[in-house]
C-alpha cells in the first residue's frame, strides 16, 4: 500500500506541475490561463466527490476504499495550489469569489483536520481501554445508572443513613445522567478524574462501613463511566466532523457550478 500511496502522490504532484505549465503556456500565447486551471480544479473536485459515491457502491469492486482515500487526500492537497493558480491570490477580490474561496478553505481545512483525527483518535480510543460501540453508549450508561441506584438502595437499607442518597441527588445523578466532561475528555485533561476524586474525598468521612462498601463499588462504576464518556467524546468527534465536511463540500460544489455558469454567460 505504501508503494501505491507514493505513486498516487507523485501523480497528484505531476498533475499540479502539468496544469501550471499549461497555464503558463496559455498565458504566453495570450490566452486565458484561468480556463485551464479552473477546469482542472473542477475535474479534481469531481474526482474528490467520487470517493463518497464509491462508499455507496461497496457491493461492486471499484478499487479498495483505502486507495480511494489516498487519492482523496493527495488530490485534495493538490487542489490547493491549483485553486491558488486559478485565483492568482490567497484571497481574491469580489464578494462571490470570496464566498467561494472561503468555502474552499473550510472544506480543505475540515478535510485536513478530519484526516489528522483519523490518525490520532483511534490510538487514544485504544488507550482508554475497552471497546464500546457508539450506538450502545446510551444503553451502557443506563446500565451503569441502574447499578448505582441499586447500590445506593442497598447502602441505605444496610446503614439506615441517607448520605449516599443525598449525594446522588446533589451531584452523582448529574454525572450519571448522560456523557459529561466532553471537551475535557477530548483534550485529555484530568478534570473528570479530579472531579471524581474530589467527590470521594468530601464524602468518605461521612460514610459508615456498609455505605463505604457500596461507595467503593460506585467509584468503580464512576471509573467505567469516565471511560465510556471518553469513548463518547472521541467517537462523536470522529463521526461528526464529517457532518461539517460533507455539507460544506456540497455547498462548495453548488457555488462552483454557478461560478462556471456565470463565467460562461458573462465573462467568455
Amino acid at each position, binding site marked *: *500500500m505504501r508503494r501505491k500511496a507514493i505513486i498516487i502522490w507523485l501523480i497528484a504532484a505531476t498533475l499540479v506541475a502539468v496544469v501550471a505549465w499549461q497555464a503558463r503556456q496559455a498565458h504566453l500565447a495570450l490566452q486565458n490561463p484561468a480556463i485551464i486551471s479552473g477546469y482542472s480544479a473542477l475535474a479534481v473536485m469531481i474526482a474528490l466527490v467520487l470517493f463518497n459515491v464509491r462508499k455507496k457502491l*461497496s*457491493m461492486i469492486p471499484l478499487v*479498495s476504499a*483505502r486507495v480511494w482515500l489516498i487519492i482523496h487526500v493527495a488530490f485534495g492537497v493538490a487542489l490547493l495550489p491549483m485553486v491558488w493558480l486559478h485565483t492568482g491570490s490567497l484571497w481574491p477580490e469580489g464578494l462571490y469569489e470570496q464566498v467561494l474561496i472561503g468555502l474552499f478553505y473550510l472544506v480543505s481545512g475540515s478535510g485536513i483536520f478530519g484526516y489528522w483525527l*483519523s490518525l490520532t483518535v*483511534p490510538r487514544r*480510543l485504544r488507550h482508554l481501554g475497552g*471497546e464500546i460501540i457508539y450506538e450502545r453508549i446510551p444503553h451502557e450508561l443506563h446500565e451503569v445508572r441502574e447499578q448505582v441506584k441499586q447500590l445506593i438502595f442497598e447502602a441505605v437499607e444496610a446503614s439506615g443513613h441517607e448520605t449516599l442518597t443525598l449525594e446522588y441527588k446533589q451531584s452523582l445523578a448529574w454525572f450519571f445522567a448522560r456523557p459529561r466532561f466532553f471537551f475535557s475528555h477530548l483534550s485529555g485533561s484530568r478534570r473528570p478524574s479530579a472531579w471524581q476524586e474530589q467527590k470521594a474525598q468530601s464524602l468518605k468521612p461521612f460514610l459508615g462501613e456498609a455505605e463505604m462498601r457500596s461507595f467503593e463499588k460506585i467509584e468503580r462504576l464512576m471509573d467505567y463511566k469516565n471511560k465510556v464518556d471518553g469513548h463518547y467524546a472521541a467517537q462523536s468527534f470522529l463521526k461528526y466532523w464529517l457532518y461539517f465536511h460533507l455539507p460544506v463540500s456540497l455547498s462548495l460544489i453548488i457555488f462552483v457550478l454557478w461560478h462556471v455558469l456565470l463565467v460562461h454567460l458573462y465573462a467568455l
Partner: protein
Amino acid sequence: MANGIKLVDRPKRWQTPFGPDMSDVDIDRILASKPFSSMDQDKFPASTSLRDIIRFDARIIRAEPGQIILREGEYGNSAFAILSGQVQIVLGDGLPPNLLGRSDDKGKSYAQAFAQLWQNNKHAEARKLQVNTATDSENQFVVLKDLNQVFNDYKCAPLPAGQLFGELAALGRMPRTASVFVDQPTKLLEIRWQGIREISRFNAEFKQAIDTKYRENALRQHLQATDLFTHAPDEAFEEIVASTLFETHGSFDWYLDYKSGKRTEPVIASEGDYPDGLLLVRAGFARVYRSLGSGQQTLTYLSAGDLYGFHEVYDQSQGKESRLETSLSALGYVDLIRIPLPLLEKYVFPHMTPPEFRLRDHKNKPLENNLAEDWLVYNRFINATAAMVIDLDSCVRCDDCVRACASTHDGNPRFKRHGKVFDNWMVTNACMHCIDPVCMIGCPTGAIHRSAQGGEVIINDDTCIGCGTCAASCPYDNITVVEIADGAGRAVVDPVSHKPIQKATKCDLCHTNPGGPACVQACPHDALFRVDFDTINPLNKV
C-alpha cells in the same frame, strides 16, 4: 417495520426433501439392496425411521458413462451408495482442472451486484418466503467425453455396487480427496451427512464399518500425501500403513466444553518422556508447551501436516540418549498418526539431512512475544481461515465495513463490529470459516454447509429451519438467529405456536459477490483484514 404479521408454517426438518421425487417403490428397492438390506429397521425410532431417512435425506442419481460424481478438492456434504453399476475412483495426481470442468461458483454478475443498490429490502431481515428444493452446486455434473483416453492417461480403481463412498469428506468436513466418475450406466443413492449420522446412531454395524473405513482411508490418504515417505518404494506402503498407528485425542464435540467455559486439553505427550515415534497431525490442533515455574509456556501450536518429536526420534536413531523436549496437548480434538522409529530409520532418515529447527527453539523468544500466540490458542482462533481482524489503532469506528456488509446482504449486516481484543487487534464476531466448522455438526437439514468451490461455510436460507443449533454450537458466537419479516416488513409468525419464524445468519465471505468480502474493500483506513492464522503460524515460517 410495517404493522401486522404474516402467518407462515414454521419450517421443519424434512419439510424440504433432499430429492423431490423419491417414491415408495424407490424406497422399497433401496431398502432391499446393500447395505440397507442388512439393517434392522426396528432399531430406528418411529420419528426417524430408516424409511424416512431414505425418503428425506437421500436422492437417487442415475448417472451416465463419463459423468463425474465427485471432484477432488471440492467440499461436499453427502456420501454416495452404489445401488447398481459401478464407479471409478481416480488415483494418483487426479484429473486436471479442465477435465473436471472447474468453474467459479455461480456468483452475482456486476450488474446484479450493482442492482442491490435499489433492490435491497428496506425492512430488516425481509425474505421472499419461498422454499426451494435443496441445491448443491456440486451436483451440476460434468461429463468426461473420452473415457478411453482417461483410462489410458490416469490410474483408476473400480468400486462395485453395494459400496459407499464420499463419506470421509462429508463426515470430516474436509475437501474430497479423489475424483469419482462412472464408466457405465449407474444408479447411486446420494445421502446427505445428516442421514448418514442418523443411520450410524441406530445401526451399530454401519457405524463400525464407517469408523473403520474412515480410519483406514484417512490413514492411507494422509501417509500418501505427506512428503515423509517420498523415498519409500510403492511396495513398502503396505508395511508403512500396517505399522503406523492412528490416534484421536480429545473430543470431536470439543465446542461443548469450550462453550461452557472449560478448556480441557488432554495431554498427548509430556516433556521428559521417551520418544517412541514421530507424531504427524492429520486433523485438529495441538498445543506445544513446556513447564515454566509453576505454569506452562505455550511454544507454538500444531495443525494438519505438522510434526512433533522429529528431532528427538532422530537423535534416538543416531544412538543418542534422547527425551521429549516439549509437551503436547490436544486443543479440542486432534487426529494423530504415530510413525514408529524403525519405519523412520528404514524409509526416512537415510534420505535426509539432520533437522536444524527444533520445537523447543520457540522458547528462546522473550515471554511477551508468546502472548499473542497464547491468546490465539487460548481462544481457539487458530481454527480460523478468514477471521475478521481489525487494527484498533487505525479503525476510526466509521462502520463503513458494517454498511458495506449490509449493502451486499439485502440491507442486513452479517457481523458485529465487536469482539475479543488483544493489544491493538480485535477479532470481531464475524464467521471465521473455520478449518473445523463445528457449527455444521448438528444442523438437521444441512442448511449450513461448505460451498463446493471455495469451502466457505454458508447457510442455505431456504432450508434453514431456524432451530439455532449452529448458533449454539459456534464456539465464537458468530452466528445470529434472527426473526424474519416478509417483503412488506410484517413479522412472520407460525400459525400454530404463534412464535416468530427465525433463520440463522452469518458472514458468508461475500462468496457470490464480485470482488470478495465487501468489508475489506470498504475500509478506507486499511484497518480491516481477513486472516488465516495458520499462515502466520511460526511453524510455517521455519
